């Protein structure tokens, strides 16, 4: 470098008072000369403001792969974040589900009439998950979220769908591993009852807390199955037979209509 800026030149340049040619010269120089760059007077207030704005963007948490995928699919930014964050609430449930389904599979393979256990548990698994994803006792931020515009129905249904996806996936995987599963169709016999139970608890949650509603519906299901098994007259699997599926479908449609009506009028 054959020359350096004088403080006066730096000052003039920084305050936009240099003439064109001097400015060009200064610019060519400071592109490479760090000491001369430091001669330019700092505007501390502006620097702090500028950095604060920048930090806001830079410190924003990175989007996870799930969130990224959801927003790619057209889900809104806030909704995607919510859906991706929900599993944090029910990690224990997810683990329990895997254990229960594994136990059911074990029973189905090694005990006579062991697949009954799967028939008992599969519809209840999503129900428990839904009960654990929303409510005062479960969500540590419930008191906060309950005063946001997102709370209530919308949050409940979003959480429910965030639970149903892993629950149904796990149950389907387990059902495909059952000894009796010969066709894909025979592996999804539990699906309609499961959805109906979830819809039932959602409808009931209008009058009861969600946890209580799920307990009621789940108990009803287990009692019905238990009673049928105990009476011995009819096969409990009748509840899941093709003829019964039509009834389940009918009930599910009715319940979904009830939910839709409730959302509409809410």
């Amino acid at each position, binding site marked *: 470098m*054959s*020359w350096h800026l004088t403080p006066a030149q730096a000052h003039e340049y920084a305050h936009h008072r240099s003439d064109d*040619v001097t400015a060009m010269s200064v610019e060519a120089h400071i592109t*490479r000369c*760090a000491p001369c760059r430091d001669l330019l007077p700092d505007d501390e207030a502006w*620097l702090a403001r500028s*950095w604060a704005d920048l930090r806001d963007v830079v410190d924003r948490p990175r989007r996870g792969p799930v969130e990224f995928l959801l927003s790619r699919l057209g889900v809104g930014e806030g909704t995607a974040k919510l859906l991706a964050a929900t599993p944090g609430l029910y990690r224990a449930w997810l683990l329990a589900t895997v254990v229960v389904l594994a136990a059911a599979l074990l029973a189905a393979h090694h005990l006579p009439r062991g697949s009954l256990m799967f028939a008992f548990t599969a519809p209840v698994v999503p129900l428990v998950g839904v009960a654990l994803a929303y409510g005062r006792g479960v969500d540590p931020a419930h008191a906060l979220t309950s005063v946001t515009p997102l709370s209530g129905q919308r949050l409940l249904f979003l959480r429910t769908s965030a639970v149903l996806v892993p629950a149904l996936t796990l149950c389907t995987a387990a059902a495909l591993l059952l000894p009796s599963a010969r066709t894909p169709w025979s592996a999804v016999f539990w699906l309609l009852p499961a959805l109906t139970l979830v819809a039932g608890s959602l409808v009931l949650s209008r009058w009861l807390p969600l946890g209580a509603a799920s307990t009621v519906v789940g108990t009803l299901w287990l009692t019905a199955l238990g009673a049928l098994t105990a009476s011995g007259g009819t096969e409990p699997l009748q509840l899941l037979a093709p003829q019964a599926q039509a009834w389940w479908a009918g009930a599910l449609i009715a319940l979904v209509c009830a939910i839709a009506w409730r959302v509409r009028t809410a």
Partner: protein
Amino acid sequence: MKLLRRARRRAPDYGPDSTDAVLLAAVAAGQTHALEILHRRHATWLRARLRYRCSDPDQLDAALQETFLAVWRNAGSFTPRPGDTDAGAWLWTIAIRQLISQLRKRANHWISDSDADYETIGDASAEDTVLLNIEHGPLGAALHSLSPELRSAIQATVLDGLTVREAAQILQIPEGTVKTRVMRAKARLREALT
């Protein structure tokens, strides 16, 4: 892919006195504080320099903001030349491009969203070497004698290292006009210097 790269890279030790290259390596490893040091070191002169090209302070600050965000995303693409760890030229390349994209009044997506690697422009070319002595050489007098239009054309294409197209955007004149003005300016300068 980029996420993986960032996670795998270990941040080097750095401090307020580290060189730009070290700081950029730390930024590439996800260190916010390194970006803060770089911001403190370079924001002032970049802003002063951008101000000679754009008088609207809001657009200017927005361009500067985008510049450092681009640095945050693309810090890994900086490759220091041997013996020179200064990132000034590289940063200016980004800043002037971001300013152009601001001036285009579009949503500024065309540059900030791409993972384009910024290559340092005007690497110590013959023109640079001459320009470093503008003030004290005969070129200074010659430039003084140029009309403002011709001078701004020279400034955009030579000093800022922009393409004809980018120069047309920042000067808001057609590309053909930029070309003729640069040609005329060079002819004038040659005349004055010989």
